[in-house]
């Protein structure tokens, strides 16, 4: 019998190695798997490359991982926010590398990785600083930038419910990057509020099929940070 549900957070993040690329779901704090991130801090992996839309809010979650000095590089679209003081300080001190990616390119590159594409021509960023040094191409009269897929070793995401096969459904705008990050990681780990019996989730409404999920851990009452 296949049961992807692991008993605790420590098992959920086991095996994340120094230097790993880890995608972390969430847009701001919505959908951010705060408990998995805390477990990753406890677990101790260092020199991580983190892929997330942002670069941490306040002092918890991704910000705490940054503050703990575990992140070598951030790949994100919007690091600078009112409460991104942890990242800001590390960045200004030269202690974290930043790859800034337009949000749509970030999503498309993650999706391309999950779908097995070798590269894509994207309209976004053409003629801007963020395309400097990148290959461009005119196709049917429009200019595009060549972008490569972003693969990850692990993805840490948050969903509303899962069954033991790893099928996932999400809640409102906490869905955001979760479904595509799950496809792009060799090991996708989902923290979920609720475990559903097999067959309970409507087969028409499962958002992430279990094939994309390797581990599930229940966090029944997750920290719901203010937006």
């Amino acid at each position: 019998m296949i049961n992807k549900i692991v008993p605790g957070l420590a098992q959920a993040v086991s095996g994340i190695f120094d230097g790993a690329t880890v995608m972390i779901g969430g847009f701001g704090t919505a959908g951010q798997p705060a408990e998995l991130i805390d477990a990753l801090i406890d677990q101790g992996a260092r020199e991580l490359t983190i892929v997330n839309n942002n670069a941490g809010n306040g002092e918890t979650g991704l910000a705490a991982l940054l503050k703990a000095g575990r992140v070598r590089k951030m790949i994100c679209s919007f690091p600078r926010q009112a409460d991104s003081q942890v990242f800001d300080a590390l960045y200004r001190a030269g202690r974290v590398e930043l790859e800034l990616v337009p949000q749509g390119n970030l999503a498309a590159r993650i999706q391309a990785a999950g779908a097995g594409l070798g590269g894509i021509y994207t309209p976004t960023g053409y003629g801007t600083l963020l395309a400097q040094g990148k290959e461009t191409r005119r196709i049917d009269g429009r200019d595009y930038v060549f972008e490569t897929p972003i693969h990850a070793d692990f993805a840490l995401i948050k969903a509303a419910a899962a069954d033991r096969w790893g099928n996932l459904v999400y809640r409102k705008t906490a869905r955001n990057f979760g479904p595509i990050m799950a496809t792009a990681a060799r090991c996708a780990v989902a923290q979920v509020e609720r475990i559903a019996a097999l067959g309970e989730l409507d087969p028409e409404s499962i958002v992430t099929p279990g094939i994309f999920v390797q581990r599930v851990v229940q966090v029944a009452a997750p920290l719901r940070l203010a937006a």
Partner: protein
Amino acid sequence: MYQSLNRNQLAQRIARDIPEGSYVNLGIGAPTRVGNYLPPDREIFLHSENGLLGMGPAPAAGEEDAELINAGKEPVTLLAGGCYFHHADSFAMMRGGHLDICVLGAYQVSVAGDLANWHTGAADAIPAVGGAMDLAVGARRVFVMMDHLTKSGASKIVERCDYPVTGLACVDRIYTDLAVMDVTPQGLAVTEIVPGLEFAELARLTGVPLMDARAPVAQAA
């Protein structure tokens, strides 16, 4: 003497130009206010890039949901008929030409419609782009909402952007506190000026060539 529009008046002015049935993304910051003035007799579909379509107004106090937010990370609501989707689907809407209109703030817009709104270019600034570049190239029509002049009185409408650009030749129309201008292949066409401001004075303040394209009725108003 003339009276420039305040932020809310400008938002209201822009809202008037959004037709029923439009799929619209309102950028973070001032453009979000346009949502407050959409005519209640028109069904207009608001999109937020973090994965919702059919966005409704802010929730009542105490009813905020940290998992129902807009791109500015503010609590919002979902209208009946709205729906949720993941980020790749959301940006497919934006980049695939499915949005009719987006409204964006700007540091500068060039006469060719180049947009600069993501980076001041300051050496010590931490850059952040979010979905700005995707909206700039992806929406069918890009409306810019901004002050006409900087605080020091320099025109934000320029021959060439000094700030790093967000997208090239992507702006369709500029709404400022002083005027409305269309970006055309022939140059900037002024279609409205606030009452009391002469075209010549607007042109002087702007500092780039402008065409007077005001309708006779609009001039009389």
